[in-house]
């Protein structure tokens, strides 16, 4: 809230020179408004709703039975690789945006420079693809499937 007041104050102080901050005023207000609404309504719900905790109710959800195992300790490293790929594409995106706004003024040289940039980054996607990091659990599933089919055929 203080931040908003300060921004409002700031806007009123420097008219003209920093038009952008006035543009951000609704965003700041909505931020405060949204957080405020969420807090108030969850508090209200907590006040008026019943609260009868029982040990069973407070247990982590396990379809009604007692949880036996801890959740998985580690996730496949593929998730990490996808996130890395995403970082690279995000950086690429920022550069693409900066270039695309006025791409005529950079002419064909600009298009060439951007082309080299994109192709070098495309190489990351190709590399990850070829290494199989984008094939989610296909290998394991394929193996299991074959065994199941074999045993069924034996039985028949």
């Amino acid at each position, binding site marked *: 809230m*203080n*931040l908003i007041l*300060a*921004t409002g*104050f*700031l806007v009123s102080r*420097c008219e003209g*020179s*920093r038009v*952008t*901050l006035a543009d951000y005023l609704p965003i700041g207000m909505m931020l405060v408004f949204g957080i405020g609404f969420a807090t108030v309504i969850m508090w209200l719900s907590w006040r008026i709703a019943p609260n009868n905790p029982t040990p069973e109710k407070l247990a982590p959800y396990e379809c009604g039975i007692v949880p036996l195992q*801890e*959740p998985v*300790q*580690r*996730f*496949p*490293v*593929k*998730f*990490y*690789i*996808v*996130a*890395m*790929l*995403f*970082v*690279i594409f*995000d*950086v*690429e995106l*920022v*550069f693409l945006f*900066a*270039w695309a*706004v*006025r*791409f005529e003024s950079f002419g064909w*040289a*600009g298009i060439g420079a951007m082309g*080299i*940039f994109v192709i*070098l*980054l495309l190489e*990351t996607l190709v*590399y*990850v693809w070829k*290494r*199989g*990091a984008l*094939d*989610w*659990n*296909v*290998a*394991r*599933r394929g193996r*299991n*499937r074959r065994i199941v089919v074999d045993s069924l055929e034996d039985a028949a």
Partner: protein
Amino acid sequence: MNDWLTQAENWAFILIALPMVLGAWRSVTSRNVVHSVLFLVITLAASAALFLLLGAEFVAWSVVLVYIGAVIVLFLFGIMITRAPLGMETELSHSNQTKLGAALVSGALFALITVAVITGFGETEIVSNPTRTSEIGQSMFERFVIPFEVVSVVLLAALIGGIVLARRDPAEPGDSSSSLGGAQSAHVTAEGGEA
């Protein structure tokens, strides 16, 4: 000093810088990795706000998009794939014996950046007009073409390095270690259908 305090901008700066410092401090002192990462989000958000205050909209939202939206998510995934992703067990195991070294290094880095900024810019006034996206593109394609292309090579190298560290060679058969969950031979083709 009195003069400094009457400027509205300086108050806005203080209001943004305080949570930033606090977030940075907590992110190195917190005993829980996930909490550390989330404190880092506060720091990065505040730095985006500082860029906004300088009128650098494009840089500010790039920080949100790339750092908060992507790099921190990468950190979180890094935690998820290593060890005990759930709640209380995420505490750091090693003690704070390297405190002094870390303090020295960060102090030296701070001094270096301060000196570099002061000698580099000196008394130059910051242009308070909002920076347009096209201006950033202009300096990128007219003055900094080579660094711009180098960025892509650096990113490429980073990703390949990461994958080489994270995954075993696809040719190696019979991989059963759980830490590399899905690292089996990747050349088996999909057979389709539901499992």
